[in-house]
């Protein structure tokens, strides 16, 4: 890899020990990827949840703070493994909560922006088309590449922090034009209208295409930013989709031919009503009464919060069921200023603003049966915890949570 003189001097320790450590990691991983150089990024987005980072993650973060590290670009952060804003009200083990607090403290000491959100791109870290990014959250990477036309690889945890510290990332993968071209043509013949349809479509897409860049045809032109978020988040979790094109919708795909870079597709695929039905049946494993109804995977935006508020109007959450809605503090704060707030939380629903169902310790929270409208939750949670999933559209989730 070619390094500039300035980068060489960082590697020699001239910019401090934290930057030296970060630079060693970034250059060595970059070499593995055959990166020719490092490029400046406009922002970083990192993991800081204890359930994924483990004790090694606590030590890594604290090593960087001890060495005097500071992020050199705006750096935002994914949700945590415990809702730290409501101490004591969530029954995570004390030792677990302490470790999570240590990571959060170290992240803040490095100068990070404590948004605790997987949808940074909807409010606090909004890139422009063509920006190079150092992000690790796979759903956010998928949105940035596909919907915004920014450039990001799915960085590994640890590498994300290092890139944020030095403000550089290896030049490889989705930063290169060649790898951003769609290869596989996916015709969507199923009728996709509701958010729930996009959840299921994203799941099918991820499972079918794996790591390839699909070109989607047949999506409605009035698809909303939230629906594009849902589609990409689900596909990124079910496969390793880091980028998709939707013809006539996403910026690098004004036409099918442009999305495919003027080449014929390597493969063609059709997703019809039966694929969607099978996926729904696969994700929906139980009729059991849920301990927890979890909404917001990816986290809800303001418009999604207001939509749930409308459904919850005049309803109360049934005893024995918890209804948790995941949304960053920024949107929850705005919702609290609207007349819809009472409908949203007055009936017993809880806004969880710093955490996410995927990374909360479900066993410790006493959750054995979980109902959700999110295919991402339905797909990932049973692989991590001993939890049965009931997968249904939003309206059905609200009906079960509130009765009647």
């Amino acid at each position, binding site marked *: 890899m070619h390094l500039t003189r300035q980068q060489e001097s960082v590697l020699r320790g001239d910019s401090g020990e934290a930057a030296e450590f970060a630079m060693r990691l970034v250059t060595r*991983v970059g070499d*593995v990827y055959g990166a020719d150089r490092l490029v400046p990024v406009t922002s970083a987005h990192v*993991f800081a949840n204890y359930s*994924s980072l483990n004790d090694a993650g606590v030590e890594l973060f604290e090593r960087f703070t001890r060495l005097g590290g500071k992020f050199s670009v705006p750096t935002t952060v994914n949700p945590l493994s415990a809702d730290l804003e409501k101490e004591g009200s969530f029954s995570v083990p004390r030792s677990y909560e302490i470790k999570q607090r240590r990571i959060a403290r170290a992240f803040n000491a490095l100068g990070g922006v404590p948004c605790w959100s997987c949808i940074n791109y909807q409010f606090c870290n909004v890139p422009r088309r063509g920006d190079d990014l150092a992000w*690790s959250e796979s759903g956010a990477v998928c949105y940035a590449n596909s919907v915004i036309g920014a450039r990001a690889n*799915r960085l590994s*945890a640890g*590498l994300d922090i290092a890139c944020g510290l030095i403000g550089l990332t290896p030049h490889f993968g989705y930063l290169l034009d060649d790898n951003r071209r769609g290869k596989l043509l996916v015709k969507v013949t199923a009728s996709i209208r509701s958010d729930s349809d996009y959840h299921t479509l994203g799941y099918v897409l991820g499972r079918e295409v794996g790591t390839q860049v699909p070109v989607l045809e047949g999506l409605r032109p009035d698809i909303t930013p939230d629906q594009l978020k849902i589609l990409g988040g689900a596909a990124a979790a079910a496969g390793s989709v880091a980028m998709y094109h939707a013809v006539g919708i996403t910026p690098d795909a004004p036409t099918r031919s442009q999305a495919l870079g003027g080449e014929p597709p390597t493969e063609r695929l059709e997703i019809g009503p039966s694929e969607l039905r099978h996926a729904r049946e696969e994700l929906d494993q139980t009729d059991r009464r849920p301990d927890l109804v979890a909404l917001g995977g990816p986290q809800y935006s303001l418009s999604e919060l207001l939509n749930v508020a409308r459904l919850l109007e005049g309803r109360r959450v049934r005893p024995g069921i918890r209804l948790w809605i995941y949304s960053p503090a920024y949107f929850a704060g705005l919702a609290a200023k609207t007349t819809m707030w009472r409908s949203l939380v007055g009936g017993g629903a809880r806004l969880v603003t710093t955490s996410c169902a995927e990374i909360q310790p479900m066993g410790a929270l006493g959750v054995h049966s979980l109902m959700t409208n999110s295919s991402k939750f339905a797909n990932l949670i049973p*692989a991590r915890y001993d939890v049965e999933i009931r997968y249904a559209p939003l309206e059905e989730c609200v009906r079960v949570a509130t009765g009647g």
Partner: protein
Amino acid sequence: MPQTLEGRTVAAGYARAPALVGQKPFMLAYGIDPKSGRVIDQRHDLYGQSVRGRVLLFPHGKGPTSGSMWLLETIRRGNGPAAILNRESDANVSTGLILGELLYRRKIPAMDRFTPDAFTVIRTGDVVEVDAARGRVRVWRWLTK
């Protein structure tokens, strides 16, 4: 005579240990228990086996990008593999191993892109020598005859 394979160095180092060969893509995040080194992903063909001290083979990684920290935690607790060999290594493997060296001074080699294909040559239990600095792997098999 051992059989020799050549590949690309992902993380430098030297190891000699029995092989543990997984055929399916491997999910490190929530798929390995750092406290024991055992594979806990029930959908994986190595489910229940310990990677500790073995030359671990899997074709490529899958799942969350936090896998690097699960590998690092496994190494931190002394339950890491002796080496990792892939068809194609990903950022979780390279980041986890390089951090293992930088933070805990445990140098675990990794290599990928082998000729001939490591997955047709190496079987679980073979003794495998990984000399990543030289880009070379040697394989011994105990013959039962």
